[in-house]
């Protein structure tokens, strides 16, 4: 289980006044659960991922994976593919492996599952954006992560490509049941992917709504059930996506009743 309890995360502002990015942010993700985090842009979603991923250790609070500070075994997918342009597709995936005799085989198998067998020895610069993201996805899964962090990985892709990647992601995730924390600003995407969606307020971010989703996988953002859920949410909580904290209490009550 991933247990996040951040008391306070500040950035030094240029004027000397610290800027509070996250405050009193609590969330729990069950093992094997696909959790999405949505919130207005600039609310600190990426900051949250950097803290969980250990890229930034300067904060007050506690983050625990199965009771311990998360150390290793974390897959990370960034907004951009972030592949090394001087390494081939296969080398890029193998780069993150550590003394693993089966690693190379697993890398090839994953790349095959991503339909990238043809380009194992190609350099990323020759690949399309969608293909580069598939490589990044294979890289995230090749270490057999206990936790997978994803920071709007399908942003800036055209809708069909993004949908295809979402299907691939959910496919692998269902086979491996990795715990996933998926950050996005696209509510429909979150509703389509997640077992649970956390809604964040505007900065300093707090969880304003914790919404479990019982719809069966796989689903796409254009599925009727997802659309209906989206409509329903917007009607009942038009202010939710604006991140209004005042609405929190009411939203919680209503969802408790529903």
């Amino acid at each position: 289980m991933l247990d996040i309890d951040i008391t306070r995360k500040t950035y030094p502002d240029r004027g000397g006044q610290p800027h509070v990015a996250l405050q009193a942010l609590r969330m729990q993700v069950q093992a094997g659960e696909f959790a999405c985090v949505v919130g207005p842009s600039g609310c600190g979603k990426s900051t949250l991922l950097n803290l969980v991923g250990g890229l930034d250790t300067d904060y007050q609070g506690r983050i625990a994976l199965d009771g311990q500070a998360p150390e290793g075994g974390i897959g990370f997918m960034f907004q951009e593919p972030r592949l090394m342009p001087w390494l081939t597709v296969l080398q890029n995936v193998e780069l993150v492996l550590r003394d693993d005799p089966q690693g190379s085989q697993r890398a090839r198998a994953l790349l095959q599952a991503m339909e990238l067998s043809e380009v194992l020895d190609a350099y990323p610069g020759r690949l399309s954006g969608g293909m580069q993201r598939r490589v990044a996805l294979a890289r995230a899964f090749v270490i057999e992560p206990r936790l997978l962090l994803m920071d709007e990985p399908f942003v800036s892709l055209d809708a069909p490509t993004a949908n295809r990647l979402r299907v691939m992601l959910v496919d692998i995730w269902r086979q491996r049941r990795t715990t996933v924390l998926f950050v996005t600003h696209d509510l429909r995407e979150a509703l389509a992917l997640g077992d649970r969606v956390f809604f964040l307020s505007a900065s300093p971010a707090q969880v304003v709504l914790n919404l479990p989703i019982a719809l069966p996988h796989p689903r796409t953002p254009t599925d009727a059930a997802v659309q209906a859920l989206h409509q329903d949410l917007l009607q009942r909580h038009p202010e939710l996506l604006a991140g209004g904290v005042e609405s929190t209490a009411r939203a919680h009550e209503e969802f408790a009743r529903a």
Partner: protein
Amino acid sequence: MTVKVQHALGMAPQQDNATPLKRQGATSPVGRRDALTRLASLLVFVLVWHIAASIAQTSTLPAPLAVFERIAAETASLVLPEHLYITLSRVVVSFTVAMLIGTLIGIAMGHWRRLDLFLDGWLVLGLNIPALVTIILCYVWFGLNDTAAIIAVAINKIPTVVVTVREGARAIDPRLMQVGAAYRLPPWRTFCHIYLPQLQPYLMAAARSGLSLIWKIVLVVELLGRSNGIGFQLNVFFQFFDITGILAYTLVFAAIVLLVEGLMLRPLERRVTRWRG
């Protein structure tokens, strides 16, 4: 320096894209034609030299043939190979020392602003101090020996390496470094596969300009305070007004530098920038 870096970073790949066939070497028709052009240029140079020497008819401008005969004679007597070997050893050692130290300081200055501020004044001094001054001082302080000679050459080269590599260290992409951090890669792996490849164009530019600068300075060092090496020989020939000897040694040395560039540096660069193709 900046121009060289830009060349290494931006211009070279563009040129490569414009003439992709060139990279296939002498086996393709275009490659063969290019090689012929280079050969023709060399022949024209020798021809012009020959004509000028025939017209001038003076011992201060010997004909190419006389110089080539001299090269053959000096090689056969093993005098030239011996001095050449000594000079090349000095070049290799001081080049290696200068690149290593310069790269370390350059990386450090590129990363720590405070250190950069602290050392920047020294760097400007190092860049502008005449080679002759460091050579004289090194000989005075450390004695007329090889250590002093190599220190003198390295001190002349280190500042330019630092400036180039510092530029590279500043251009390191933090987003790629984050990949190494996120996946908890061991530091050495991150350094070799994520950091160094980003620095590579700058290292290459430093090596290129370094080689041409260092072998020139090594000759001066030898002329001023060593009793062997090409620089020492050139001084001897100068005393006797032996222009043929001077040209013979210079030609051989220039040929070696061209070979190093063509057979080592350029293929190496082609190998490490394959992914740009």
